[in-house]
């Protein structure tokens, strides 16, 4: 295994959802690095139907948190991944198409990994009022906020995970086919 492969796998294995963040600001350059990584996330058909709305404005972040019950942390910056539904419709996607959500997931995972790779803490939040977040961020017509990635410098005092349980291995999550007898 090369050093580069090791480094990538280390980042994947050591990333955690960060729910306690200090008030220290996130450098704009660091935010841009994370956003640039998001641009390289795979998208179905290379269509790029997702849009990133970034903010490090304290007042906007405060109001964003007020309308996002799932936002436990107080982030120093946030990237909201939106789907441009109008553009999606032009490609022929019906409103509830699952494929659009898959691309949100790949973008989110890429942002989380990129943040961790440069020493930032990151945590995704999906429990928020779509209507309120759209208004707070003044989203253009047709942009739907799908997930908010909170960013900041990790701080002590994070609440314990919601479902503490024994750590799963890939064996627990994988089924081989064809099935082996007795396996």
């Amino acid at each position, binding site marked *: 295994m090369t050093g580069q492969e090791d480094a990538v796998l280390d980042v994947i294995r050591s990333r955690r959802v960060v729910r306690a963040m200090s008030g220290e600001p996130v450098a704009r350059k660091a935010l841009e690095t994370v956003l640039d990584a998001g641009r390289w996330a795979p998208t179905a058909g290379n269509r790029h139907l997702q849009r990133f709305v970034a903010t490090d404005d304290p007042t906007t972040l*405060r109001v964003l948190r*007020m309308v996002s*019950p799932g936002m436990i942390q107080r982030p120093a910056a946030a990237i909201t991944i939106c789907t441009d539904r109008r553009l999606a419709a032009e490609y022929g996607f019906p409103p509830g198409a699952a494929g659009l959500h898959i691309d949100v997931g790949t973008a989110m995972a890429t942002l989380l990994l990129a943040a961790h790779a440069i020493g930032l803490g990151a945590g995704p939040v999906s*429990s928020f009022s779509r*209507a309120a977040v759209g208004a707070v961020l003044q989203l253009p017509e047709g942009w739907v906020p799908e997930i908010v990635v909170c960013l900041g410098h990790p701080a002590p005092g994070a*609440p*314990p995970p*919601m479902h503490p349980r024994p750590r799963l291995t890939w064996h627990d999550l994988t089924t081989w086919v064809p099935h082996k007898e007795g396996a």
Partner: protein
Amino acid sequence: MSDIPNVAGRAPLVLDEDEALELLAYLVTAARTQVDEAAEYGPLRLLTAARRLGAAIAPRASASTAQFVTGPLVAAPELAVPRDGRDEYATRLDEVCRALAAHLTDHFTGQPGVAP
């Protein structure tokens, strides 16, 4: 600015407009998100609201109220949900409710409530 004067005989205000609005926004948006989310999040959201209200009022509340909101109220894990160990979860919430009742009795009647 509030139109209600802080007159004698009235309990002092412990929440300002910004803090109240913050909690109001949390409650309204949590009502909406809960329509689409797992039922187990319901008590979690209510307890988070209670914790946030407690944190906001603690600096201006009476010593005994501050003690309750920084003690028994925050004793339950912040992200706990009833799915894993429902009985234990309910027992823990019952303890918080008893502590609350004891504090309320003490606060409103001046008679010491029965501590859990």
